């Protein structure tokens, strides 16, 4: 298969979800930029709530990712099935963390600091 062929397949596969991906990416970039402008550092800020929420969102993928493909977790059977699903869950958790962690920072710094 040619590079053009691979890109064509990818294009057709992703086209229906382009609006979702662009929206998600915009949200991520906006939150990250705003947080960085207010002093947020990716690995320098810790928030247990954001971390737990990101993990929960990632784990929720075990349920809805197979459902999204008109299947169910019951049919995730082979080693490759599990590798693909776990990869998707980890990716989902990381993206969720990249949004939730700076969002949590922004919410905290907005509150007035004690005198």
């Amino acid at each position, binding site marked *: 298969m*040619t590079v053009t062929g691979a*890109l064509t397949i990818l*294009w057709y596969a992703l086209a229906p979800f382009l609006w979702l991906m662009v929206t998600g990416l915009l949200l991520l970039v906006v939150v990250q930029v705003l947080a960085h402008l207010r002093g947020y550092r990716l690995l320098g800020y810790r928030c247990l709530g954001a971390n737990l929420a990101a993990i929960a969102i990632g784990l929720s993928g075990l349920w809805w990712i197979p459902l999204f493909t008109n299947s169910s977790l019951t049919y995730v059977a082979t080693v490759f099935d599990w590798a693909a699903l776990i990869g998707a869950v980890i990716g989902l958790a990381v993206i969720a963390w990249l949004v939730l962690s700076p969002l949590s920072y922004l919410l905290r710094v907005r509150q007035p600091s004690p005198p």
Partner: protein
Amino acid sequence: MSRHARDPSRLDRRQFLKLSAGAGAAGLLYSSGLQARSVSTNARIVIIGGGAGGMAMANRLSRRLDGARISLVEPREVHHYQPGWTLVASGVWRPEKTMRPNSRFVPGGVDWVRQPAAGIDAANRKVELGDGSQLDYDYLVVATGLQLNYHLIDGMSPDLVGSHGIGSVYASIEGAARTRDAIDSWIAQGSGKGIFTAAPTPVKCAGAPLKMTFTTLSRLEASGRRDAFQVEFMAPGAGLFSQPYVNDFVKQRFDDQGVTRRHHYRISAIDPQAREAEFTFVGPDSEFTSHHELREAEFSAEGERKVVTDYDFIHVVPPMSAPDFVKASDLIAQDGPFRGEWLDVDIYTLQHNRYPEVFGIGDVIGAPINKTAASVKAQAPVVEANLIAQIQGQALPLRHNGYTSCPMITGIGKAMLVEFGYEDNFAFLPSFPFIDPRDESWAAWVMKDRMLQPAYYAVLEGQA
């Protein structure tokens, strides 16, 4: 006759992004030296059929040939993604998901002749069209697809699909949707007998009758009343599928899921009002791989053992053949297993066995397997290279290995990615080392549900 051409000033966002991606890729191809050289010719090339094979060839040849006059004979405005019809008939996809305008795929510079082909005069190199006009050609690509012969089942017509408990996923996209509705009604009935049939001829997507059985079993099990339903599969031969491992797997799975298998029976008549079907015993000599030995006359032979059975739902798979106008031409096989029914091509080079300027692709060709869109993906580069070599008077460089693929849906949500070819008794030819064709998996289902339709459109555009 009208010419379709892209107007750059009317690019929509989708086309713009696609062209941008294509431009980037083209740059990569150019820099890596992978771009195929174009060939100058003033040859007149006619492609009959704008399905998967015809559209792929129109795109490939228009890209490779400089100066050629290419005509695509296709009356339909809508392109149907037929591999999705089993998902429509199973209630998983909406029908609209399988349809795109043909205008999206017809390349610029190709004459799109919006007429049906009505005949082929191979000796004089002419294609007769539905309006009585003719197209002369120097080279011909026959990509007509096949013909559904419902009329060979007494009392049966595609118009009946969706009524009287009759389903048939092959009939059309509307037929697939009505098949879904017929299955819905049967399940809502709460009990009853369902009969699934197979055809005594080569068929397109030979896995479809099995997939329909499996997806319906999924739905029956989901209803919570599986035991109230009786499911039978009537097969004309001893086998259910040409690939030996999958054949054994499906038989075992049917047995495990309570499907009663009856072999060597073909459906010969149907009485929709009475909801009765007649099956004719075709004898143990009618093995799956020799179904093509049955000739039309034998469909109505007398003195055969017949069984009449009632049903609440029946899935009818009609006998299939090349379209009548191809059968009436000199391009049809004259002898051998495909005589009188299918296009006479060398199954490796895809060149006609008696008319070297004619090539065949897709469902219409006489081949033991290969009536799938996946086969077209493998055949298209072969026909492209061999046709161009023929134009240049060179030896044909490529051979088709018989590659075909069937994502065998074994339930709604799981499938086996079955890929195989001619050699070694239809041995597996897996594309992905990490997906075992013998395993049912979610990944194979995702391929069917999400990735194969994009891959199909890439094939149409000559990109895959």
